[in-house]
């Protein structure tokens, strides 16, 4: 009589498919990208539905409270603007056709594509500008999954980038905001690294020429850090917010703008599980040594249905850590 283990082993060997690991990896990369796009589209559609519902609600309320026919509105409508002249405007003469060069040079001496920018960053008296972009290679714009691109900054206010740093990841990345986390008069740059329902943000230090720059460098976590809370020492600070099936994150801020402290909460739960959730609340302060110091990190176990221990305001420390 055959044993159960013989049968199971025989069937597993017969059921095990042959796969090329490289093909599988390609499929995984595509699937990961689809997930990001799907989540983004879902959130956008939801926002659209909320707006549409709000507009419909306003319209219905307006009709419900409308006065009797013929009554005048409280505010007179403005007179209609004169119609624009119907004469067509002159079109520029077509330029001779040539193969257009991909991307542009923002001041770094090489061409970049997929450019996003953010202006009005306060670096002392200068209004600086930041970009995220991907370097053009072989005359084409690489996919952001193949080349995560760079963050570049103009620190002297002349409109041309004068320093850059390579990003580790870019999925819909862009320079997202600026805030003075160490209250020294020079704002730190917040870069959205991944646009998704669980967006993550990197924080970069801007070093003007007067302080040994120009440079833009990721702010690192000081020793000893808080590895279990997502802040290992010596690694760039990354902040996560939002949520999905296995993660919830929130960012708050204390004592801004005089002595800002970032408060970062995150909770992880088993996917598809109803078990308890492990949550951490970590307080971080950017010190004069240019490093992000963990002031405290508390870990708690909570019921899966419990909300995060902190409430995230709209713009903690002056930055809206939510792209959706």
């Amino acid at each position, binding site marked *: *009589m*055959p*044993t*159960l*283990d*013989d*049968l*199971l082993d*025989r*069937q*597993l*060997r*017969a*059921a*095990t*498919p*042959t*796969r090329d*690991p490289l093909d*599988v*990896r390609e*499929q*995984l990369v595509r*699937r*990961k990208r689809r*997930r990001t796009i799907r989540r983004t589209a879902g959130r956008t559609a939801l926002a659209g539905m909320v707006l549409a519902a709000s507009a419909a609600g306003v319209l219905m309320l307006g009709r419900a409270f409308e006065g009797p026919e013929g009554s005048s509105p409280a505010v007179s409508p403005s007179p209609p603007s004169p119609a624009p002249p119907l004469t067509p405007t002159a079109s520029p003469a077509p330029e001779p056709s040539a193969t257009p060069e991909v991307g542009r040079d923002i001041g770094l001496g090489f061409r970049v594509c997929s450019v996003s920018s953010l202006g009005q960053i306060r670096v002392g008296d200068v209004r600086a500008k930041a970009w995220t972009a991907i370097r053009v290679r072989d005359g084409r714009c690489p996919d952001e999954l193949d080349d995560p691109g760079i963050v570049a900054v103009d620190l002297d206010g002349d409109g041309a980038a004068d320093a850059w740093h390579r990003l580790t*990841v870019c999925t819909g990345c862009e320079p997202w905001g600026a805030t003075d986390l160490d209250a020294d008069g020079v704002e730190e740059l917040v870069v959205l690294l*991944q646009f998704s329902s*669980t967006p*993550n943000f990197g924080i970069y230090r801007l070093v003007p020429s007067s302080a040994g720059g120009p440079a833009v460098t990721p702010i690192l976590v000081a020793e000893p850090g808080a590895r*279990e809370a*997502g802040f*290992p020492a010596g690694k760039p600070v*990354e902040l*996560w917010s939002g949520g*999905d*099936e*296995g*993660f919830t994150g929130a960012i708050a801020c204390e004592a801004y703008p005089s002595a800002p402290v970032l408060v970062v909460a995150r909770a*992880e739960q*088993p*996917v*598809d*599980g109803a*078990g308890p959730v492990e949550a951490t609340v970590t307080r971080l302060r950017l010190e004069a040594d240019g490093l992000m110091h963990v002031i405290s990190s508390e870990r708690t176990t909570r019921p899966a249905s419990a909300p995060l221990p902190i409430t995230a305001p709209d713009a903690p420390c002056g930055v809206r850590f939510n792209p959706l």
Partner: protein
Amino acid sequence: MVDEAELRAFLREGYPRLVGAVALACGSEPAAEDAVQEAIVRAWERSERGQQIDALAPWVATVALNLSRSGLRRALAERRARARMAPGPVASPELTAERLDLQRALAGLPARQREAVVLRSFLELRVDEIARAMGTTEGTVKSQLAKARAALAAALAVDPEPEVEPDHADA
């Protein structure tokens, strides 16, 4: 943390076996592959967020088994697979009949027992690893395994020879 080297090693060695195991549990290879890939991507995203996954294979296996329970997922995955795949090699009639019996027997098990037996018998995880992956105790896993094996042996008319849990130090 899932790094690139670990992911590549997993895709080379663990992935085909895991797809096979989940396919036996859910009765569909396209659905199994879909569920396993989805689970790996979730592990990858967690890793990018700095979340710890102590052991990739048990984590992915557990999530994939959960995902593969969805009938809608199975239907969509099979439709996609039919559109892109050539027919695979045909198994011998005896093997196919035996597989159908096994799939029916697995389908008749409660979900947690099925999960335990797939993790143990197909993926050869230790009881403590299964307990961690399923979020339960080693005692519960042993009890579920014993019940599952007895039910399978009865359904398949085979000898329910008791298996011996390997020494943890060997793993």
